[in-house]
C-alpha cells in the first residue's frame, strides 16, 4: 500500500508546487504594467458610507440603553449576576468584605488553599510549585494586584466553562451544531478586543461585568472547540457497545463520553485559562483592577522595569495554572487503581493537609500578619525592576545600530516587495491570484470560502489596508515557521532542550506585549518591522510547541530503523522526522497565522499602520469608531480566509497520501 501511494503523493506535490510557482510568476508579470490602478486605497481620515452607518450604531445603543426593554430585561440581569459573582470572589481573596477592611482569606489562607488543591487534584510537585509561585508574587510586592487579577480571571473562567462545556459537548455530538457555531467562535477569537471594548461599557457599564465579558468572549472558544474534539474522538465502537447494552443517551453521555474525554476537556479548560490571562492588560483599559493596571500605568512613563515586574507576576500565575491543570488532566487519565494501602495513606495525608489548610485559613481571616502580605525590605520586586531596566538600557545602547540595519534590510528586501505586490495590484488581479492559489492548494471548497471573504473585504472599504496587513502577516508567519521548525525539531529531539525552552515559550506567550514593546521600539524604531517582531514573539511559541509534539510522535521504531540503515542526523531529520510530522507542520502554520493576526492591533500601536492602526484609532476617536469596527471585521475575514484555505490544503495533502 504505502509503496504504491508514495509516487502518487509525490506527483501531486510536484504538480501543485509547479502550479503555485506559475500563479505567482504570472501575478508578478501582470503587476508590472498594472500596478497602481484599481487599488481601492482610502486615506487614513476618509470614511465610507458603511463606516458612517456603523458610527450611528454606537449612538443608537447609547440613546436607547435606559429605555429599551432589551436592556432592562436581558442585559441588566446578566450584568447584575456577573457583578455579584465577581464581588463574591473578590471578597474572598482580594477586596475588603463582610464589613472588614480585608478580604475573607488573607495571603496565608490563599497560599494554603491553592497549594492544597493543587496537590489534591494534581500532585505534590505542582502543589509545591503553587506555594512557591504565590509566595514569589508576594515578595515581588504585587500580592494585592495579583489577587485582583486572579479573582477576575477565575470569574471569567467559571462563566466560560459554564457556557463552554455544555456547548462543546453539544457540538461534539452534532456535526450540524459544530458547523453552525464555528464561524462564531472564529469571530470571537479573531475580532480585536479594542473594537468591542468601548461598546461593551455601554451595554454592561464600567465595572467588573464588562471586564469579565470582554475576557470571556476571547476565552470561551478554546474550551468549546477542545471539548467538542474530545467528545468526537471517543471511539465509535465504544459508543456502539454501550448503546447495544441498552444505555440511554443521557447514560452514554455521563458514563462513557464525558469520562473518556475528561483529559481532553481539562486541556480545553487549560487553554481557556491561558486566554483569560492574556486579556488582563486590555481589560485594564476599562478599569479592571489588577496587574494589568500596573502594566498600563508603567507604560505611560515608559517604565519598563515596573511593567516587566508586573508582567512576570502574570507569567508566574499562568505557569502555576497551566501546570496544575495539566497535572490534573494527567491524574484524570490514570486508569490504574492505587492499591488499598496507597489509597489509605493518601487519604490520611490529605486529611492532615486539609486540617493544616483550615488552620491557615482561620489565621489569615483573623490576624493581620497572615492577612496582608508583609511588605519586607528584602522584596525582590525592586531587584527585578532594576535588572530589567539594566538589560533594556544595555540592549538599547549597544544593539540598536545592528538591529536597525537588520530591520532596514528585511524591510527593503522582503516586506516592501510583498507589500508592493499585494497593495499596488488592482483588486481584481489580487483576487484572481488568491483564488487560483486556493484552487490549487485546497480545491473547490477553499475557492468558495476565499471568494466570500474577499468580496466582504472589499465591502468593508478597507481593501488597501487589509492587503498591507496581509503582507506583514505573511512575512511574520514565514519567520514564525522558520523558528517553529528549527527550535521545534531541536526540542522534539532532545528532552533536555524541551525542559529548558518550554518555560521561556510559556513566558513569551503570556507576558503582555505592552511590556516588551518599549525596548522593541528602541531597537527597531516605530515601524512595520517592530510589529512583525512582536507578532513573532507571540506566535512562534505555539508553532514551536506543535512542531516539537509532531516530531516526538514519530515512532521510535521508525527512527531506529532509519538510523540503523545508516542515515545521518541531517538525513534523519529531513527525510524521516519532518516528512512524517507534516500534519503537525500544517497545523503549526495554521495556528501561527491566527496568532500573528491576533497581534495586528498591537502592531498598530508601534507603527504598523494599516488595519491595526484603524482599530486603534477607532477605539480613540468617536468619529472613527465605524471605521475601526470595519477594520476589525476585515481582520476577522483575513483570518477566516487564511484558515479555511490552509485547512483545505492540509486536508488535501493528507488525502493525497
Amino acid at each position: 500500500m504505502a509503496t504504491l501511494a508514495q509516487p502518487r503523493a509525490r506527483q501531486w506535490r510536484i504538480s501543485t508546487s509547479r502550479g503555485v510557482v506559475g500563479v505567482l510568476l504570472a501575478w508578478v508579470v501582470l503587476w508590472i504594467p498594472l500596478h497602481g490602478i484599481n487599488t481601492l486605497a482610502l486615506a487614513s481620515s476618509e470614511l465610507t458610507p458603511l463606516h458612517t452607518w456603523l458610527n450611528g450604531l454606537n449612538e443608537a445603543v447609547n440613546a436607547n440603553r435606559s429605555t429599551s426593554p432589551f436592556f432592562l430585561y436581558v442585559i441588566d440581569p446578566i450584568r447584575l449576576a456577573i457583578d455579584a459573582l465577581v464581588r463574591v470572589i473578590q471578597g474572598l481573596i482580594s477586596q475588603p468584605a463582610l464589613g472588614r477592611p480585608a478580604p475573607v482569606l488573607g495571603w496565608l489562607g490563599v497560599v494554603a488553599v491553592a497549594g492544597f488543591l493543587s496537590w489534591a487534584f494534581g500532585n505534590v510537585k505542582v502543589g509545591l510549585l503553587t506555594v512557591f509561585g504565590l509566595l514569589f508574587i508576594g515578595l515581588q510586592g504585587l500580592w494585592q494586584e495579583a489577587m485582583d487579577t486572579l479573582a477576575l480571571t477565575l470569574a471569567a473562567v467559571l462563566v466560560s466553562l459554564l457556557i463552554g462545556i455544555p456547548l462543546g459537548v453539544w457540538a461534539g455530538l452534532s456535526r450540524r451544531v459544530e458547523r453552525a457555531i464555528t464561524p462564531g467562535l472564529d469571530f470571537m477569537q479573531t475580532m480585536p478586543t479594542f473594537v468591542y471594548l468601548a461598546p461593551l461599557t455601554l451595554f454592561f457599564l464600567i465595572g467588573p461585568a464588562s471586564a469579565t465579558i470582554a475576557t470571556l468572549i476571547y476565552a470561551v472558544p478554546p474550551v468549546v472547540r477542545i471539548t467538542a474534539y474530545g467528545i468526537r474522538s471517543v471511539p465509535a465502537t465504544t459508543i456502539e457497545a454501550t448503546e447495544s447494552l441498552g444505555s440511554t443517551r443521557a447514560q452514554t453521555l455521563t458514563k462513557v463520553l464525558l469520562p473518556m474525554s475528561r483529559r481532553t476537556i481539562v486541556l480545553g479548560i487549560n487553554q481557556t485559562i491561558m486566554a483569560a490571562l492574556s486579556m488582563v492588560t486590555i481589560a485594564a483599559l476599562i478599569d479592571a483592577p489588577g496587574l494589568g493596571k500596573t502594566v498600563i500605568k508603567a507604560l505611560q512613563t515608559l517604565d519598563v522595569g515596573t511593567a516587566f515586574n508586573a508582567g512576570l507576576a502574570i507569567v508566574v500565575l499562568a505557569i502555576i495554572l497551566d501546570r496544575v491543570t495539566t497535572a490534573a488532566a494527567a491524574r484524570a487519565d490514570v486508569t490504574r487503581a492505587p492499591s488499598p494501602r496507597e489509597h489509605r495513606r493518601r487519604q490520611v495525608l490529605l486529611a492532615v493537609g486539609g486540617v493544616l489548610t483550615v488552620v491557615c485559613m482561620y489565621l489569615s481571616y483573623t490576624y493581620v500578619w497572615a492577612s496582608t502580605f508583609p511588605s519586607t525590605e528584602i522584596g525582590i520586586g525592586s531587584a527585578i525592576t532594576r535588572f530589567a531596566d539594566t538589560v533594556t538600557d544595555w540592549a538599547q545602547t549597544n544593539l540598536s545600530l545592528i538591529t536597525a540595519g537588520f530591520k532596514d534590510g528585511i524591510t527593503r528586501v522582503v516586506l516592501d516587495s510583498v507589500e508592493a505586490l499585494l497593495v499596488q495590484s488592482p483588486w481584481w488581479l489580487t483576487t484572481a491570484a488568491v483564488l487560483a492559489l486556493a484552487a490549487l492548494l485546497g480545491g473547490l471548497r477553499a475557492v468558495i470560502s476565499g471568494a466570500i471573504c474577499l468580496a466582504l473585504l472589499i465591502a468593508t472599504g478597507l481593501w488597501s489596508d487589509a492587503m498591507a496587513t496581509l503582507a506583514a502577516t505573511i512575512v511574520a508567519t514565514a519567520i514564525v515557521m522558520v523558528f517553529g521548525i528549527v527550535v521545534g525539531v531541536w526540542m522534539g529531539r532532545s528532552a533536555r532542550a524541551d525542559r529548558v525552552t518550554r518555560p521561556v515559550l510559556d513566558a513569551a506567550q503570556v507576558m503582555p506585549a505592552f511590556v516588551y514593546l518599549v525596548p522593541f521600539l528602541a531597537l527597531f524604531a516605530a515601524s512595520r518591522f517592530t510589529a512583525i517582531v512582536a507578532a513573532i514573539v507571540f506566535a512562534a511559541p505555539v508553532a514551536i510547541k506543535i512542531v516539537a509534539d509532531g516530531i516526538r510522535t514519530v515512532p521510535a521504531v521508525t527512527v531506529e530503523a532509519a538510523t540503523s540503515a545508516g542515515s545521518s542526523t541531517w538525513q534523519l531529520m529531513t527525510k524521516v522526522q519532518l516528512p512524517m510530522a507534516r500534519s503537525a507542520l500544517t497545523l503549526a502554520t495554521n495556528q501561527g497565522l491566527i496568532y500573528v493576526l491576533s497581534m495586528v492591533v498591537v502592531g498598530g500601536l508601534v507603527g504598523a499602520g494599516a488595519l491595526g492602526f484603524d482599530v486603534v484609532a477607532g477605539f480613540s476617536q468617536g468619529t472613527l469608531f465605524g471605521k475601526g469596527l470595519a477594520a476589525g471585521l476585515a481582520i476577522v475575514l483575513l483570518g477566516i480566509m487564511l484558515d479555511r484555505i490552509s485547512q483545505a490544503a492540509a486536508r488535501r495533502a493528507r488525502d493525497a497520501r
Partner: protein
Amino acid sequence: MMRSWRRVRIALVAVAALALAGCGGATVGSSGSGTSGGSGPACGTVNLAINPWVGYEADAAVYSYVAKTKLNCNVVSKDLKEQVAWAGFGTGEVDLILENWGHPDLTKQYITDQKTAVDLGPTGNKGIIGWYVPPWLAQAHPDITDWTNLNKYADQFRTSESGDQGQLLDGDPSYVTNDNALVTNLGLNFKVVQGGSETALIQSFRQAEAQKQFFLAYFYEPQWFFEEMKLVKVNLPPFKEGCAAEGPGVACDYPAYDLNKIASAKWVAAGGPAVELAKKFQWTNDDQNAVARSIAVDKMSPEDAAKKWVDANPDKVNAWLPATS
C-alpha cells in the same frame, strides 16, 4: 500503619504550634481603621475618570488630594480611555473628567445632543500641538526649526517606513491631527507615518537624541517628557483665525487649546463641595509639569506628588476652597 499515625501526630502538633504561634499580633479590623470620622459637612462621592496620560494623572492626584483632605470627599478613581469615560456620563458611572483635549465629536454627542454632560470651564492648562525635533538637532542645525527649511533636510529624515521622502511620525490617534493635509498644503517632501501610540513617539525621541539621528514628530505640551528632554518646536506658518483650523485646506500651525473640565450634568445639578472644587480648579502648565515630573521622573506615588505640590502652593489651593473655611 504505625509510622503513618506517628506522622499524623507530628503534623497535628505542628498545626497546634503554628496556631499558637500565629495567635499573636493584631487582629483584622481591631485597630479602628474604619472611615476616619471627619468634622466637616458631608461631601459625598465623586466618580473621577482617569484618562491614560501622566498630565491627567497629575490633575487627578491634586484634585483628589484636596477633595479628600480638605473637604472630606470620597473620591473613586476609574482608569478609562476618553471615549469610555464620556460614555460614563450617560450611564451615570462617571462624574468628572479633569483634562479634556477638544473632542468636538464627543462634545456634540454628550453636551449638545444628549445633555448628560456640561463644560466646567478651563483648567488653565494650554494645550500646544505641533511638530518637534530632538534638542541635538535644533542645536546642530538651528535653521531646521523654520518649516521652510524642512525640505532641505528631507533626505536625512528618511526611514524604512517613509520610502524616498522624509518621515513625520504621528502618535496616539486620540489627539487631533491635520498632518496629512499640512504636509500636502505646505508642499513638504515628507510622508506621515502612523506611530500609533505616545510610547512610540517618546521612545523614538529618546533614541534619536541618544544616537544623533534626524527625527521629526507630532507632539504636544504639557507633557511630562519635557521634564526629561527639552524638545524644540518647529515653527509652522502661525495660526490665524480663518486659515481653516481643521479640514483639507489647512496650511498653518495648530491653535493653542484651552484644556477644559467636563462633568456629569446630574452631578453638577446636585451641587456640593466637590462640584465647587471642580469648578474652581485651575492651574498653569508649570504647576502640572511639576506634579507630572514627581510622578513620571521621580517615581513618586500620585498621592505623595500631590501632597508635595499642595504643601508648596497653599495660596493656589486656598483659592479653590470655599471662602469661609
